[in-house]
């Protein structure tokens, strides 16, 4: 695939229905730009909270010719670079991840998406979910 040729230093692993790229040393914007350059379509971002409050892992999912491509980024803090200016399709999901996990995407402005006034970001980090 073209994306593999474009990122020769990346390692690819097939796992659970997606082709995952390890992109150590690359920024999220560099990898996103490589995806856009080969014509991949953005699907979504899945955010995970790491155990023992060590930060977060973000999984970016893309589609290229019917294949799901994924790459992950871990952040020890609570901010990561936004790719909204590169890919307008990420607008809502970046806002949703911010509201759900209180992860700030730097370099863009926010408007509330799912939360109503008075709610604070981080609703997915709450423990008191109905059981």
């Amino acid at each position, binding site marked *: 695939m073209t994306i593999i040729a474009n990122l020769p230093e990346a390692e690819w692993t097939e796992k659970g229905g*997606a082709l995952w790229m390890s992109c150590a040393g690359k920024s999220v914007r560099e990898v996103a730009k490589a995806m856009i350059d080969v014509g991949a379509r953005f699907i979504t971002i899945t955010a995970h909270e790491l155990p023992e409050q060590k930060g977060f892992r973000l999984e970016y999912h893309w589609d290229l010719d019917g294949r799901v491509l994924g790459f992950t980024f871990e952040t020890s803090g609570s901010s990561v670079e936004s790719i909204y200016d590169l890919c307008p399709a990420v607008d809502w999901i970046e806002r949703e991840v911010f509201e759900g996990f209180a992860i700030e995407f730097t370099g863009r402005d926010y408007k509330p998406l799912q939360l109503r006034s008075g709610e604070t970001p981080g609703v997915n980090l709450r423990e008191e979910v109905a059981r």
Partner: protein
Amino acid sequence: MTYKIPMGPYHPGLEEPYKLDMICEGETIVDTEINIGFNFRNIEHLAETRNYVQVIALMERVCGICSFIHTLTLCQAMEKVDGHNPPPRARYIRTIMGELERLHSHVLWAGIACKLIGFKTMFMTCFALREKVMDILQAISGNRVNYSMNCVGGVNRDIEDPAAILKMVEVLEAEMAHTIIPVLTTSSTARSRCAGVGVLTKEQALASAVVGPTARASGVAQDIRKAAPYAAYDELDFDVPVQEAGDVRARLLVRALEIMESCKILRQALAKLPPGEIIDGDGKFNFLKPASEIGTSRVEAPRGEVFYSVTWQERMRNPKRLHVRTPSYVNIPAVRWMMLGNRLADAPLIQASVDPCYSCTDR
């Protein structure tokens, strides 16, 4: 001078809550703000507290129209985690249920579109026809909204008399061909209200990553059933209708043609339904020794691609993380581009032309 016209959040043309703020100059829309979240349930977070059986019932309730599709996508993702492989008969039953759901969703949308165009007799005709699709779904599953058909490794219920279902599909196809399709494709009323209205160009469709009929009406020939076949789609012959105009009429035509393609798929699937088991193993999720820690799956829902990601966690009966990306979530933001430069009076029809589902969007 510009002024803002609010539409919603209560029943903005459809019986679900969301809000559009249209910035107008005279009668012309120059910008649109889209507000969602009125139905926000944080169902993904709730899913992390449910075990692998309960989570299927929970995710079936993300959407009242494509409830089968949600559990299908979820079960396919879970099958990638635990290594189950549904038998051929189950894959065909999943295809049949998926296409029936597409039919009833598209006919429902056609009825709402007719109502918004001002064609109220046709609205009633569409809903009468939709009832017949619901009758078939009920005959197969025993339910009309939440079918409880999918489980890990297959389906819960068999189609015991495919010939009877095939007869019902043939009657339905003839009625579609004689009533709904001519109105949607040839009526001058539909043409005058829809042609050239709410255009989304191919470049805008690609930039906003829209999916399903919304993308295909803008010339983006993308359909998960063809691009990444699941269930039994790789064994069936069907076409993917694509239109280039990107307007409301193109979205109308794509869905009308898809209704006929769905009937074609249903006839083939019912005729070729293979014998055998409908479930692989005991239908229980193996959370002790998974094949993969993460499973992703995509399905072509009536409104476009649904994506699920399921993450397993050791020694736990519930998923660590479950994420769902619904088609309306990516299609609704494109309404902003569709509205630009259009008349305020066309706003209800334009926003409805993406077949928005707010329940899916808010989750």
